[in-house]
Structure formats: structure tokens, C-alpha cells
């Protein structure tokens, strides 16, 4: 018994799906079956990570002391991206926010790093995976985020029990070229398939053996086995090599989501946790530049502390009709003519920092008279009192569309822009863009929730802020 493990988890899938057949239809060959998840034009790995972490933290009284963020596609280099995630979550300044970026394996490494301490640490893994048009990476990749709060359960803390205990694990590393990319390149290169399989399988066995030895378990003790990694063929052959029955194998979500890189181990683990019963042993096997095996045992607390929206529900609510041309445009592979409007000017550093609680955490102000203000004001719009405000974070408060309009003139990667006036439950109004919305189905009274997005990038600066998105009728029923 390590007494450590998963205290909370959540996953996020973007709204959009690309039918793989659309690739073949456009390019004349390639494509395939099923769909892949596609981050919208206003999402990046940071925003995907924020949404996943919000899903994990929603309604939970957890105060992480660290934020570890893993991705292969950091929005910024040289600068930490976990700080934006931490700020968007309103975690305050007393946290270590750090990135583990560059390789797919960083996702598992971040999770392991968290599990080795007492925490609570927030581990956020997200990725946007694509390749050149027509490539296997484009077809088989996916975009998603997953987040875990890991650490030791404090005795008597009924609000934050262990949902899955970390039993132990094993790792193996080797240096070989299977998948790689030079820093300036847009897509990865891969070596001949059979070489990679030959290199990966012994690493996987080595790590599994180490994990079983460390925990005193045998393969027969494993109830659910997740195998994923950077090499599809090795991932497929590993269970047979390791003598693990097919009935134990978790869905790898290839048909619906695609391989989401650094996020994928977390996404699949979240998916298994969504359905696993208590006292089940879960093995997470990740083949990436070696292999990592993590073993968990679910607890009786899991059932009562799952996130409101599970992976299956998120898969089901995806919108499958993103045109291939839009997908290429959003990923920067198709340079399209812009409207005759100026590109937005950059958000500058001092006001973005000064107003950071507003910009990143969506924190408004509420006057002593009870009137909410978005953005925060010093003088009340209602009673006109000066400086009687307290902060209030409204990121998790839902609202209703009071009125809206469709703007065909405004600059956007995905015109038209939909502007909505949102009245929040419990008071307060804000006027902002709607995203993940079909203008044809919008109406006054549409229910919305806030979502963290990258509005645009200008002058080398990503402009992060919040938009509203429609809440489906089923999601509206979920207790956030």
C-alpha cells in the first residue's frame, strides 16, 4: 500500500470530429474509417489542458501544490505553459507550475512524477496531433486533454479520498529512432515499422516484469489493461506477447478519437476509470522511447467521485462534420484569403498581467449590494458605490443567451463570428463570442457554459480568454 494515487481525474475532447473518409475524398486517396477528434481553431494544447483540468477539479475541494503540464505541442517555447493553465484554474501563486514537453512520453512521465510525491499535484496532459496532408499521422492522430490530481490521501479527508491507489510501476528506456522530429519541423518522421516493433516489445516486457515484481502481482491479477504508445503495430502485438487476454484490453479509441499523443495514456486511463468497479487492478502500459507500466487499484470511493461528463459522453457529443478544408486551415496547412479587416492587435503584457485574474481565471467582481460585474469594476453599475467589490470567479457558472448576432465582417479563422450577450445564473452579464456553436440552432434562451480558448495569436502573443459554448440538454442535467 503506497497510500498514494489518483484523487481526481477528468478528460476533455474537443467538439469537432473529422471523418477520415473526408481526407480520401479531398485528396483522392488515403483516409480510412471512423473519425478523429479535432481541436477547434481557437484551441491549443494549453486550452485543451485547462478544459481537462476543469473537468477533474469541478466540484472538488482540491488545492494542488504543483501543476505539471505535458504535451508535444507547447503553445510557447522558452516560456512555461503550465503557468497559463494554473492561472486559468485560479490556483493562485503558491504553486509550482512546470512543463514537461516535447515527447509523447512526457505525458506518462508527468503522471509518474506526480505519483512519486505526496501532492496533491495536478498533472495535465494534452496534445494536438497531426501530420502533413494525407499522412498516417494526420489520419490516426487525435486531439484531447486529460488531467489527474495525484498524491496521498490525507487520513480522515472524506472530500478527497483515493479513487485509485497507485500500486507501483516499472520503466525501461532505450535509445533508438522510431519516431522523431527536428524542432523546426511541422511533422514527424518514422522509421520502418518492423524495426520499431522489434525494439519496443522487449522494452514493454521489461517494464511490465519490473512493475509486477515491484507490486507482487502477476498478469492474472490484472483486470483492465490499457496499452498505448507511439508505435501502433507494437501496441497491437504487445498483449499477445505479454500473455494478456483480449477480454482485459481497454478500447484504444482509435476509431473515434485517434491517438492523442502525450494525452492518450491519460485519456484511456480516464476512460477505464469511468466504468471500472471497485477493487479492480488497472495496468497502464505506454510504449514510447522505452516503456512505462503503471498499476492502479480502484477504490470504493471511485463511483461517487467520477467527473460529471465521462469520456464516452464526450465522444458521443462530438460534431462529426468539420470539413477537411477547415481542418487543414485550423492546423495551418492551408493559407486562406483573409477578410478585408485588420488582423486583431496583440494583447500586451502589462494589462494581461494586471488583469490576469479576469483574463485567465474569469474572475469578476461583486459589489456589497450584490451586483456582479464582468469584467471587474471599481464603481458599481447598480448602486454606484466605489470600491466595495470582492472577487468572484464565474468560470464555472452557467448562463443563458439574452440575445446574439452573427457577424460576417469580423476577422476569424472560422467565420462567421457569433456574438452573444450572456446573462449568468445568479446575476451578471457579459458579451462575448460563442464557440462550438451552430448559428442555425441558436436562439434566445440557449444555455451556455464558459470555455477557455485561444482567441487569436498576434504579434507572437497568444491571446487566451474565455468564450461561451452551448450546453447540450444532457450536459445541462449533469451536476458540474
Amino acid at each position: 500500500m503506497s497510500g498514494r494515487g489518483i484523487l481526481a481525474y477528468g478528460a476533455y475532447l474537443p467538439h469537432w470530429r473529422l471523418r477520415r473518409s473526408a481526407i480520401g475524398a479531398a485528396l483522392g486517396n488515403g483516409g480510412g474509417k471512423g473519425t478523429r477528434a479535432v481541436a477547434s481553431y481557437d484551441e491549443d494544447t494549453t486550452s485543451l489542458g485547462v478544459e481537462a483540468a476543469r473537468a477533474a477539479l469541478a466540484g472538488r475541494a482540491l488545492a494542488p501544490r504543483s501543476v505539471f503540464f505535458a504535451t508535444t505541442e507547447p503553445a510557447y517555447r522558452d516560456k512555461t505553459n503550465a503557468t497559463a493553465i494554473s492561472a486559468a484554474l485560479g490556483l493562485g501563486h503558491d504553486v509550482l507550475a512546470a512543463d514537461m514537453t516535447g515527447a509523447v512520453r512526457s505525458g506518462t512521465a508527468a503522471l509518474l512524477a506526480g505519483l512519486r510525491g505526496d501532492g496533491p499535484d495536478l498533472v495535465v496532459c494534452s496534445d494536438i496531433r497531426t501530420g502533413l496532408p494525407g499522412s498516417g499521422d494526420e489520419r490516426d492522430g487525435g486531439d484531447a486533454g486529460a488531467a489527474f490530481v495525484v498524491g496521498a490521501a490525507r487520513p480522515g479527508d472524506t472530500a478527497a479520498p483515493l479513487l485509485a491507489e497507485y500500486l507501483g510501476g516499472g520503466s525501461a528506456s532505450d535509445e533508438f529512432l522510431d519516431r522523431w522530429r527536428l524542432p523546426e519541423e511541422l511533422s514527424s518522421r518514422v522509421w520502418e515499422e518492423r524495426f520499431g516493433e522489434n525494439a519496443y516489445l522487449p522494452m514493454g516486457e521489461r517494464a511490465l516484469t519490473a512493475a509486477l515484481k515491484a507490486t507482487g502481482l502477476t498478469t492474472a491479477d490484472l483486470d483492465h489493461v490499457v496499452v498505448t504508445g507511439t508505435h501502433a503495430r507494437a501496441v497491437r502485438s504487445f498483449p499477445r506477447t505479454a500473455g494478456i487476454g483480449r477480454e482485459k484490453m481497454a478500447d484504444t479509441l482509435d476509431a473515434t478519437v485517434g491517438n492523442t499523443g502525450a494525452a492518450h495514456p491519460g485519456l484511456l486511463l480516464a476512460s477505464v476509470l469511468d466504468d471500472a468497479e471497485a477493487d479492480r487492478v488497472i495496468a497502464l502500459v505506454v510504449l514510447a522511447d522505452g516503456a512505462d507500466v503503471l498499476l492502479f487499484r480502484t477504490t470504493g470511493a471511485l463511483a461517487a467521485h467520477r467527473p460529471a461528463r465521462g469520456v464516452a459522453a464526450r465522444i458521443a457529443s462530438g460534431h462529426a462534420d468539420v470539413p477537411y478544408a477547415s481542418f487543414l486551415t485550423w492546423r495551418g496547412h492551408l493559407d486562406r484569403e483573409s477578410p478585408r479587416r485588420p488582423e486583431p492587435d496583440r494583447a500586451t503584457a502589462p494589462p494581461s498581467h494586471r488583469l490576469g485574474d479576469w483574463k485567465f481565471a474569469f474572475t469578476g467582481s461583486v459589489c456589497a449590494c450584490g451586483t456582479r460585474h464582468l469584467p471587474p469594476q471599481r464603481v458599481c453599475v447598480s448602486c454606484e458605490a466605489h470600491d466595495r467589490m470582492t472577487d468572484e470567479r464565474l468560470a464555472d457558472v452557467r448562463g443563458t443567451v439574452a440575445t446574439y448576432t452573427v457577424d460576417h465582417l469580423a476577422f476569424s479563422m472560422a467565420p462567421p463570428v457569433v456574438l452573444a450577450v450572456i446573462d449568468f445564473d445568479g446575476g451578471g452579464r457579459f458579451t462575448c463570442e460563442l464557440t462550438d456553436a451552430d448559428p442555425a440552432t441558436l436562439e434566445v434562451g440557449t444555455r451556455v457554459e464558459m470555455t477557455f480558448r485561444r482567441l487569436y495569436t498576434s504579434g507572437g502573443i497568444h491571446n487566451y480568454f474565455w468564450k461561451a459554448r452551448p450546453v447540450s440538454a444532457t450536459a445541462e442535467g449533469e451536476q458540474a
Partner: protein
Amino acid sequence: MSSHGIKDKVAIVGMGCTPFGEHWDLSVADMLVDSATQALESAGLDKPAVDAYWLGTAASGWGGMTLSTALKTDYRPVSRVENFCATGSEAFRNACYAVASGAYDVAMAIGVEKLKDSGYSGLVKTMPAHDGTMGQLTAPARFSLLAPAYCAKYGVSLDDFKEVMTRVAWKNHYNGARNPRAAFQKEVPRETIARSLKVAGELGVFDCSGVSDGSAAAIVVRAEDAHKYTDKPLYVKALSMVAGPGNGPIDPDYDYTTFEEAVRSAKDAYAQAGVTDPRAELSMAEVHDCFTPTEVVLMEDLGFSGRGKGWQDCRDGVFDLTGELPVNPDGGLKSFGHPIGASGLRMLFECWLQLRGEAPAERQIKIKDKGYGMTQNLGGGPGDCVSFVSVVGSELG
């Protein structure tokens, strides 16, 4: 709050207005020289007689030197003012106050804007450094919120309201077709307006004012000196400028069917001028028809129509050239476009022509007893704007 006004203390004795349009061959300085020259000639004045200048421009130049270098104003004071789309009116208001205070005998208010040099569609705003949270919404999008809100509040079908919007555009183009200074001098069939490409919400291209360049100027003196310069001065009866708290976008009580700033500025101006029944007393009104629904809503905010009745009055021709109260007899922003710094003064220029009986015969309106005209100029968007109202008249008292 006190607002005493300066009724009958100041008079306009000369005005100038360039044609508005795509002036590819004219610079900001050229247009300033053109409108200033016209205004001086109109007043029979030489430039040295002007003691001080107020220049209105939103973004076509900075500082007083935009005018002083163009016009060589001989070391006179030039104040450049900006107040959103009411910039031209703000220049006029300040010049009037300067003369009323006794500080100067003769002042010129001049406005200019060069929009066509940007190469973009619609207005382009230059923002101070910001945190990126205020959005990039266009003016048509903000104003398009009026139509559905109005329909919902007053139980008007969107089709009926769209027909009224179309009629507003049709009426203003009809008037503009009779104005040699307008940027668009053609009547536009209603079907063309109704079917025009959507820009935002229910707004088609023809529901939006155009983009153009232009300049207009006015020379103001103390009322008692007016007849030294002209037999037909226009007396300033009222000036009101209101800046709202900007609560529309953040206050759930705002319903997008009114401009409170216009209501307040009209009320203040009518009190200054002694107007109690604007629809009956005013001979004409130039209002800020930036988008067609704006004009409909303004008819109510300015007291021309009852609440919920503006759309019917617009439909029934009350504000036509030959109607009970002609609105935008010069063609409005719809026919002139909206060179921001010039528009407020362009509205006054139409009062200057009409109230003095100098408009071309085909658009000369009938002048009521008082000889009053008004201008209303709006800057910003619904629930978040500044509004200016002036009343001018051809007689003292």
C-alpha cells in the same frame, strides 16, 4: 444636475461641406482646406478673422497641428477633439462654448476623416494597449442586436421589421439622390436593399452606412454679431452631450431597444431650447442612421414616436421628405457614409441649407413656424455610447 445651455448666445454665420465619397486624390489636408475655404467664403471672412479652431477627427491625425499645418492658421489655438462617432459634433460644441464664454469673437469648428486609405471594409478602430479580452466585434454586429430585441419586446414580426429597415434605407437613399454632396446619389430599389448580402444579424450591406472621406466646417460668432456676417444666421438653441456608463454589455437590465444616452441628451437639449413637442415643433432632424434599426429606435428615443410605435411611423412615411417631420433630408449617413470627424458637422450643414431655404428645390423641406432643426450624433454601440443633440433655429427667441 444643472444644464443651462447657451440658447441664442451663439450663431453659425458660415458653413462648408465637401462632397463625401472615395477621395482617392484628396488628402486629409486637402479636405480640411476645402471645407474651411467654403466656410470662410460663406461667412465672407478672411482667415485672420478666425480667433480659434476646434478640429474633430477620430483617427485621421493627431493634435491641433493636423489643421494648423494644412491651413496655416497663423499661430492660432487649435484643439483637436475626439468623442467616438460624435467627434464632429464635439468640435462644434466646444467652439460654441468658447465664443459664448467671451474668450473669442470668431471660432471655427471643423471635422475631417479619411477612411478610404485604410484598405479595409468598415470602420477600423485603433485601440490602446489592452489585455485582449474585449473582443473584436464590428459595429454592424453590435447594432444588429437592436432588431431582434425590438421585435421581441413589441411583438413585431422580424419580417415586418425588416421591411421597415428597408424603408429607412430606401428613404435615405431617396433623399441622398437629391444631394450633390452625397457619396451615394442614387435611389436604390427596395428589393435590392432587402436582398443585400448579410453583414451581421439581420443587417444587409444596404442597412449599413457606407465608408467614405469628407470634411465639413462651421464658423460661429456671438449672436449679437451675427448679422455683420450674414442676413440668415442660424442660432444655437441647444447643445447636449451625454456619455453613458457603458452598462449595456454588462447589465442584465438593458434590453437593446433604446439608447438611454440619446434619450438623456434629447431631453436636455429640448429643455435648453424650450421644445416640448419635438415632432410638431421641429422642421427637420438629422439623426445618426449608422444602421437602419438605429434610426427606428432613435425616433422613439428622441420623442418623435411613442415607445413601440417608431417602426409604424417609419413605415407610414412620417419621416419622409414630405412627411410630418423629415428625418435625414440630406440622405443621412446612409447616403454620405460616415467620415467620423465630419459627420456631426455635415448634419448641421443640412440644417444650414434647409432652414435658410437654400437646399436644392427637389429636397427643400417645408419649414415650420419656429424654424428649428436638430442634429443627433451617436458614438459607440447600444448600451455603451455617447450621444450629442443640438437644436438650431433661424430666428432669435
